[in-house]
């Protein structure tokens, strides 16, 4: 369980994280979604005590990270694949981390096997590809068999097989009752991995809800309509609560009224003929773009009240 209260981080005049509240529950994969620069990494760095919050608090299982007596066993962290000295071999990197908690070398070999690094474990990290670096970061996160995992862009640079593996791993760890918190800037990735989403944009929580709910809300289907008299149809639909936008001459994009009802309304009106009626579903990515771009539609206050 990770809990943030009014968590804020400012760098000079720039506010990276703007008083956010959220909680990440154990036993499910929680996705942390947002465009680059939204404040995801900064938030994760504050969770594990690398960055000091300007104000507010964040705790893991009720305490701040710095007070853990065995941090590696409590929390596994992958912040970026570059948190490694490139002159050291993967095995020595992991051994050094393991030694702090007197974790046996056998466990180091185990996580090397688990992440598929066997063939390169004794090579220096400066020759590693992005994907191998990512695997090493994941190996380090898994080293202490922690109850909480915080992974920043874990699939970044991985091949399709690696992406699949991370998804299964994240779900498997959550199914064991662990808290799994992973970030991504790709909605499609999150939709396949996470059950719950916290969407961040410009340092604020835009949404905090189950994935299905966010998709349903953000999808917000519209209908493309062409009619003999677009202006009259426009007025008619607005009267019935529709939100109408002109796409091109004679074509309207209607939201809030379903296609059959638009046809009924037009039929009931005198000499108003529908030429085209096309329901449009948004793709996941479009839904996400709308969420992160259009803060007005999903203000933080609204999502906050939905919590708990």
């Amino acid at each position: 369980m990770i809990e943030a209260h009014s968590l804020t981080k400012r760098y000079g005049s720039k506010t990276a994280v703007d008083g956010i509240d959220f909680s990440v529950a154990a036993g499910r994969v929680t996705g942390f979604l947002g465009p680059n620069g939204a404040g995801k990494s900064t938030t994760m760095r504050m969770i594990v005590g690398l960055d000091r919050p300007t104000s507010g608090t964040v705790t893991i299982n009720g305490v701040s990270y710095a007070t853990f007596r065995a941090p590696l066993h409590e929390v596994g962290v992958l912040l970026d694949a570059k948190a490694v000295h490139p002159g050291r071999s993967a095995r020595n990197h992991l051994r050094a981390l393991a030694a702090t908690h007197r974790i046996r070398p056998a466990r180091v070999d185990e996580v090397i096997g688990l992440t598929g690094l066997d063939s390169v474990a004794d090579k220096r990290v400066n020759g590693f590809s992005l994907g191998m670096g990512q695997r090493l970061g994941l190996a380090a996160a898994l080293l202490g068999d922690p109850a909480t995992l915080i992974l920043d862009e874990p699939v970044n640079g991985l091949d399709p097989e690696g992406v699949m593996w991370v998804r299964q791993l994240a779900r498997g760890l959550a199914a064991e009752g662990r808290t799994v918190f992973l970030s991504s800037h790709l909605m499609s990735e999150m939709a396949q991995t996470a059950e719950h989403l916290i969407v961040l944009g410009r340092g604020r929580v835009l949404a905090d809800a189950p994935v299905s709910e966010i998709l349903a809300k953000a999808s917000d289907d519209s209908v493309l309509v062409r009619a003999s008299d677009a202006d009259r149809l426009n007025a008619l639909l607005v009267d019935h609560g529709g939100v109408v936008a002109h796409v091109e001459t004679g074509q309207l994009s209607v939201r809030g009224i379903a296609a059959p009802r638009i046809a009924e309304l037009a039929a009931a009106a005198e000499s108003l003929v529908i030429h085209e009626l096309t329901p449009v579903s948004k793709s996941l990515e479009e839904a996400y773009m709308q969420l992160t771009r259009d803060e007005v539609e999903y203000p933080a206050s609204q999502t906050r009240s939905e919590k708990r």
Partner: protein
Amino acid sequence: MSTATSLSTTNRNDLSHLGIIQSEWIKLRSLRSTWWTFAILFVITVGVGIQMSSSTSFAWLDGGLSQTGMQAAGVNAVIIGTDINVLVVSVLGVLVIASEYSTGMIRSTFTTVPQRVPALLAKSLVLAIGTFLVVALAVAITIPISIGLLAGNGIDVRLDDPHYWRAMIGSICYLVLIGLMAFGIGAILRSIAGGIAVALGLVFVAPLALGLVGGSSAPQIWLQNFVALLPFNLGRALTAHPGYADFASPGVPLQRPEGLWVLEPWQGALGLVMWVVVVFTAAIVLLKRRDA
């Protein structure tokens, strides 16, 4: 790759100081740069010591060198390489800590040891132990060779001279302390280039530039006394032998202006320790305060 995370083989121990020290020891010895630097330290100590021992001779001096002068010559021959090695340990000290910042490794270090200070102290401890062992070994090898070579040149160094041994041990401690000071500077600046520049500026350039000041006016004396407190000159005091004047300018009594400090070896050691303490205090305060 598999999805099993194998809980069974994981033993669970708390973070411990011994574990952190062991971790830093693994880190130190798993980098090539460490071994290169240690090799250079060793070669300079032994090589320059041999070179100096074989070329030191006072056969030209009427009546020969006094015994304390010979002892000082023996000390000088072994530790002369120290003047170069302060450069090497300065670079090593900065590198050990600043490279963690430049590579991002520090984030792994601090998420593993979130209190941070134990990791910094453990890192400085293994640096100090490693440097001590390498330099002590090099000095131990150089001493018998040096004594043999000097004897061939008519300089009989006697080993029952406590000042001789104090200077030897002093030169080892001097390099360890300079390495620690550079480490502290690296921890403050978190940059390899900046750390090396400042460390070498303090250790080398400052005493060289300010050392040109002589004279006996009050401000000149004040400045010379200030220069005496720079790390390089504190090291000189720590490794000094009482016969040094006999050896450096035999037969000519040394004239010192009134009010000029002549530091005892223990004062030199104390001064160096103070430098380390001051730099470490600043490093620790900043370490706790700054984002990593």
